[in-house]
Every structure is written in structure tokens, then in C-alpha cells.
């Protein structure tokens, strides 16, 4: 037997493949929902909408200020005690909820910074030709803010993919949960966890490849 039991790893990979979709689904749902929520929060912050602005600040403060694991336990174990209708909340839902709220807090701030960073004179130019505020945002500000926000948002997406592994602490059998079970059965812990590490690494590299292509496209207008 060699240092690594490669046959075991090659056998484990197809088993883990079956749990990949759940991991990707949680990550994708978290990304979409967090992005939508973060855009909303960012707009509230940029426009300083009275009342909502203060609430948003508190939201961001809490979800940035506490560990994701604590938040997940709070949703999964804590909330059902408080709110009876949540008794059926399952681990997947709680994970998506946690990822959404946690990461939207971070993303809202980088989206806000990107919006504020768009050259003020372009805003005036758009208004001067008679654009409405909505047209100004859609056509001029948001496309440019996107370019600035994409690198940091991608970092959060990468973080989120890896954070789905915390779902296993809520009893969800996703990539990490499945690996844990397999490892416990075979006692080949190193092989099992290096295999799952390669899975996460590959997903993140795929996303990074997509990010590079996206950034090249978004930077087209700024090459001299």
C-alpha cells in the first residue's frame, strides 16, 4: 500500500459527485438571494432612506459582527423555539437563509462603495440630457459600479461556496457531510478529506476562471 490509497479516492469521487448538486444548489441560491438583498441594502444606504438606513446599518453590523456558524445555529435550533411556524425549517433552508443574510451584509457595503465611486460628473451629464434617475442608474451608474464591485463580490461568492460545508453541522448531507460519513466508515480520513478538498478547490477554480473572463469583458472600455 502506498502513502495514499488512490483506489479509495477514485472510488470515493463518484460517491461525492452525487452530493455535489446539493452543495451547488445551496451556493447558487445563496448567491442570487444575497446579491438581490445586498443591492437593496446598498440602494437604501446610498439614498439614505430615512428609517430604513438605520435598520440597514444595524442589520449589517449584526451579520458582519457574528460568526456564520452562530447565525446558522440560531436559525436552525433557536428560531423554531421562538416562532412556532418555523418548526419544519430544514437544514438546507436554514443554510441558504444564513448564507444569504450573512453574505448580503458584506456585499451591500462593497456594492455601496462601487456606486458611490462612479464619477459624479457623469451623473450630471446624464441628468443634463434629460435622463430620469432610473435611466441614469440603469444605463450609466450600475454598469460602471458593476465593474468595480465584481472582484470583491466574486471573493464573497468563493467564500460562500466553501461556507456551504457548514450545512453539515445542521445535519445536511452535502459534500462535506457525505465525506464525513464515508471517512467514518473507512477510517481513511486523510484520503477522504483531501478528496473533498479537491472538489471545493475545483469548483472555486472554475468560478475564478469565469471571473477572469468577466473582468476582461468589463474592462474593455478602460484599455488605453
Amino acid at each position: 500500500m502506498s502513502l495514499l490509497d488512490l483506489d479509495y479516492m477514485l472510488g470515493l469521487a463518484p460517491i461525492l459527485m452525487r452530493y455535489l448538486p446539493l452543495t451547488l444548489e445551496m451556493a447558487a441560491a445563496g448567491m442570487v438571494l444575497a446579491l438581490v438583498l445586498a443591492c437593496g441594502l446598498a440602494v437604501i444606504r446610498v439614498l439614505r432612506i430615512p428609517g430604513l438606513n438605520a435598520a440597514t446599518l444595524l442589520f449589517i453590523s449584526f451579520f458582519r459582527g457574528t460568526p456564520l456558524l452562530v447565525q446558522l445555529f440560531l436559525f436552525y435550533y433557536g428560531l423554531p423555539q421562538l416562532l412556532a411556524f418555523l418548526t419544519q425549517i430544514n437544514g438546507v433552508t436554514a443554510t441558504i437563509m444564513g448564507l444569504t443574510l450573512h453574505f448580503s451584509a458584506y456585499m451591500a457595503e462593497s456594492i455601496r462603495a462601487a456606486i458611490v465611486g462612479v464619477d459624479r460628473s457623469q451623473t450630471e451629464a446624464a441628468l443634463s440630457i434629460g435622463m430620469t434617475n432610473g435611466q441614469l442608474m440603469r444605463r450609466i451608474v450600475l454598469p460602471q459600479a458593476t465593474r468595480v464591485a465584481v472582484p470583491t463580490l466574486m471573493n464573497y461568492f468563493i467564500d460562500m461556496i466553501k461556507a456551504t460545508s457548514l450545512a453539515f453541522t445542521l445535519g445536511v448531507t452535502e459534500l462535506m457531510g457525505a465525506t464525513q460519513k464515508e471517512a467514518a466508515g473507512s477510517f481513511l480520513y486523510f484520503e477522504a478529506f483531501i478528496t473533498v478538498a479537491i472538489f471545493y478547490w475545483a469548483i472555486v477554480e472554475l468560478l475564478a476562471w469565469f471571473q477572469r473572463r468577466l473582468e476582461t469583458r468589463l474592462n474593455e472600455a478602460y484599455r488605453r
Partner: protein
Amino acid sequence: MIKVAGLIKRFGGTAVLDGIDLAIEQGEIIVVIGPSGTGKSTLLRCLNFLERPDAGRLTINDLDVDVTRASRRDILTARRRTAFVFQNYALFANKTALENIAEGLIVVNRWPKEKAHARAREILARIGLADKADAYPASLSGGQQQRVGIGRAMAAQAEVILFDEPTSSLDPEWVEEVLELMKQLARERQTMLVVTHEMSFARDVADRVIFMEGGRIVEQGPPDQLFGAPQDPRTRNFLRKVLATQVSPEGVN
């Protein structure tokens, strides 16, 4: 015809515009001169509602509003009838030269994209940048960017183009091409209200020169009269200072 009456704009306690009355005839080219901080740019910005005036009446063709009561619709109308050329060009950085010029036609005037792009190409040809249609602002020189800025204003087919120190941010080498384009527009009798420190442009091109100081119009008249025989001591004082520093080969009267 464009008319403002009793225009007042305050920043904090100070009146930057202190009762401006001005009528601009169609096809008229007016140059506004005066010391820095006397409200010249603010006047242009108020006509375009980039600043909200504190009092006054604005008339542009059939739009006739008390500026303090102007509705959102009035403001959009006023903006569509007044095009603005900015000191720092303010081109849309995410759009090509062609798209910068076509943007207003597509978004504001709701033209189909092909028609707007065709018009934008005509304008690019007129401003001498036909070969730069697909260039982004970052790859254009200052002079080229400002010509696109003027092209964007031309596309709006506004009643008047407001020029806010259009050559002040330019390296000296690019000033001439921008002034040349403005002269071309003047020959086509495009109505223009120009704030500038280019005295020779004022002398050569303007139908009327307005001297502003302290938020008021101190003196106005044809360039020969204003430069040749200024009546007000403040005008004389200002002209003495600027003409001493602006050396042009042919001199200024």
C-alpha cells in the same frame, strides 16, 4: 427664445446669482466673462436645473415656469431643451464615442438604436472623429473627448448649448481644435451660451458679451463695444487684468 428673469441662487447665506435677467434670441451666440466665483457657471447650471434656483422665472419656448415651483416634468423638459458641455468633458466612461452621442437619443428621445447610431455617425463626421466611433473615452485625447462632449450636446438638438468653460481643463495643444469646432457651430447659427476665459474667442465669435461680477450682470454689449469701450470701471479693471496675461499674436483691441 430663452428668457430668465430675476434668477437668484444662494449657497448658504451668499447669493451667487443675485437677480439675473437675460434673454437669448434664437441663433444668438453669447459669451459670459468675469472673475472666478461670480456665478457664471452657476447661471448655466441653473438653466439646466443641475442647480435648483431659489427664485426666478425661466422661459424656453412654450415652457414658462417659476423655477421654485418647477415640477419633475418641467425640469426634464428644461433639460431636454438645454444641452450642456462640461469643463471636464464628463463623458460616459462605459460607452464608446458613438454611444456617448447616441445615448440621449436612445434613452431620452426613444429613437430606435439604428436611427440613433446613424445620427451619431453624422455628428462624429461633423466633429471630425468619424474614425473614433468605437473608441472609449479613456483612449481619446482631452481635445477629442471634449469634441465628443460637444457632439453629445449637438445630438440633443436643444434650443441652446450651454458651454461651461469648455477649454479650461485642456492641455494647451488641444484648445484650438475645440474652439474651432465651437466656431463651426457658431457659423451654423447654433444658439450658444458660453462661459469662457478665451477672450479672443469672445471677440471673434460672440454676438454679445456679458460681463458678470458678484452674481450680477454688470455690463453687456457687442464685443467691439465691451472690449473697445467698456463703460463700467469693474469691466475695465477685469479686462485690464485678463488681457495683460493673454498674449495673442494679433493682440486684442
